[in-house]
């Protein structure tokens, strides 16, 4: 039994969700190999070989793989898929984009967004925006799996000493051209890997107030900033702030929900957080049903006071 994990990386380092995917692959009871498909990606391969549990790293290094185009990366995976029992991706925008192309290329079902491994062919996954959990069994000999990061503790980034095997990189499909990437730049941690998240909802009132009230608290705690879909739809913050079933799924040590009522679609994205704090003026808001600590009152007074008392 061998599993191949398709790493998400920026050519120099591994993205955190790759470590959770490696942890899930290890639970399949299999040897874990990692594929780095990139360009000038030796750095990412060096990082992957040190991950605990990894026994081999495949490095496909070529210009066609520079920007992670789905057509090319999927072709690369299919080119090496033959000996593997499972092909495992992180369930990120990157992994979700590529995995189904690999599944249909192998004519097998894909098991999306698994949150646990019950046995090598049986998994649980959330359906209906997390309102139900399905236990599914794969009947295909080969499995293509995407892994929801919050379901698995990340594999340790050190402790391994796998060898790196260079493989032939595939040629460009010629059908899709990468034009540009606009990644919001800031000094805050990324939402999906942050230890603390300060998140705002419609109750914050405006985009201006969102920044005025929440940023000082996030600065104080070294936190990432998030938002509910209502706040995003109201135009307070851009879409990539969104935490929820249709946004990012997060599980920080501490999640502070400010002015968020707690719609089911938001809860689906943050309910695995270790500690949840809710600040809301409506004592009946559903967010208090999942919060460890609730504080009822005006967020415009409470949050600045919190910043002040944190000193």
């Amino acid at each position, binding site marked *: 039994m061998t599993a191949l994990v398709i790493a998400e990386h920026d050519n120099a380092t591994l993205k955190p969700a790759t470590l959770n995917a490696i942890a899930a692959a290890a639970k399949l009871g299999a040897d874990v190999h990692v594929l780095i498909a990139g360009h000038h990606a030796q750095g990412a391969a060096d990082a992957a070989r040190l991950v605990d549990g990894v026994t081999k790293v495949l490095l496909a290094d070529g210009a066609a793989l520079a920007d992670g185009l789905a057509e090319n990366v999927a072709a690369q995976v299919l080119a090496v898929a033959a000996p593997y029992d499972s092909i495992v991706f992180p369930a990120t925008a990157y992994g979700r984009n590529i995995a189904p192309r690999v599944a249909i290329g192998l004519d097998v079902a894909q098991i999306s967004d698994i949150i646990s491994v019950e046995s090598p062919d049986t998994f649980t996954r959330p359906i209906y925006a997390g309102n139900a959990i399905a*236990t599914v069994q*794969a009947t295909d000999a080969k499995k293509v799996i995407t892994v929801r990061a919050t379901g698995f503790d990340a594999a340790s980034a050190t402790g391994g000493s796998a060898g790196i095997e260079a493989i032939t990189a595939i040629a460009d499909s010629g059908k899709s051209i990468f034009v540009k990437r606009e990644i919001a730049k800031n000094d805050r941690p990324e939402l999906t890997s942050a230890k603390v998240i300060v998140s705002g909802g419609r109750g914050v009132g405006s985009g201006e107030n969102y920044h005025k009230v929440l940023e000082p608290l996030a600065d104080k705690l070294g936190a990432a900033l998030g938002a509910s879909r209502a706040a995003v739809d109201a135009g307070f913050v851009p879409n990539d702030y969104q935490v929820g079933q249709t946004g990012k799924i997060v599980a920080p040590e501490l999640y502070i929900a400010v002015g968020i009522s707690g719609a089911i679609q938001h809860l689906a994205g943050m309910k695995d957080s270790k500690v949840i704090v809710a600040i809301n003026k409506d004592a009946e808001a559903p967010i208090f049903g999942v919060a460890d600590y609730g504080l009822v009152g005006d967020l415009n007074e409470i949050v600045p006071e919190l910043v002040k008392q944190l000193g």
Partner: protein
Amino acid sequence: MKILVSVKRVVDYNVKVRVKSDQTGVDIANVKMSMNPFDEIAIEEAVRQREANVATEVIAVSCGPAQCQETLRTAMALGADRAILVESNDELQPLAVAKLIGALIAREKPELVILGKQAIDDDSNQVGQMVAALASMPQATFASKLTIANGRAEVTREVDGGLETLSLSLPAVVTTDLRLNEPRYVTLPNIMKAKKKPLEVLKPADLGVDVTPRLKTLKVSDPPTRKAGIKVPDVASLIAKLKTEAKVI
């Protein structure tokens, strides 16, 4: 240019589903069913391309039971010109649906295929990518902007941490994210007009597709519930709890 759009009939997004007591699935008897919201955005985008004279015809397709005809009528009321239902009472998993849509693409030869990024029932997020691979078309998933010009599709995609722009040769597959557009409301005159539009019904066998499920659902259960905690009276006690009890700051 012909655009093919797939639509799925799902439990309405406002309905809170209940898991059946025998854990065989969720209870969808007597529950309001609607078009998958991402598919509504897909139809809207296709209709806008036709209104802008970029496209000449919008074909809505659906796979599922006879009731999907209602969903297709809604798609036509939103502006699709005609519809095809691949009717089946069997459980259709993403792999099978992708093959059915792939067979319809081979028959209809659209230059653009637009699908929702995922259905809000099984949340698989697979069919668009599978269709693209099967039809050997380039793909742009999670689209928030689509421009067709000079025989190519330029698509802005929502990715982790920001946006990415791709230029695809046509024919191509695009899957929609929430911010691509805001679908129009269905009006009564358009509902009446939609009743007269052509709706073809096929069976999976007509398309030569084997739809046998590959995943067995062993059970469906309620998600673990998180217990409500306590309310604290003020900021000072909140900080004290976070420091001494939860030990997270």
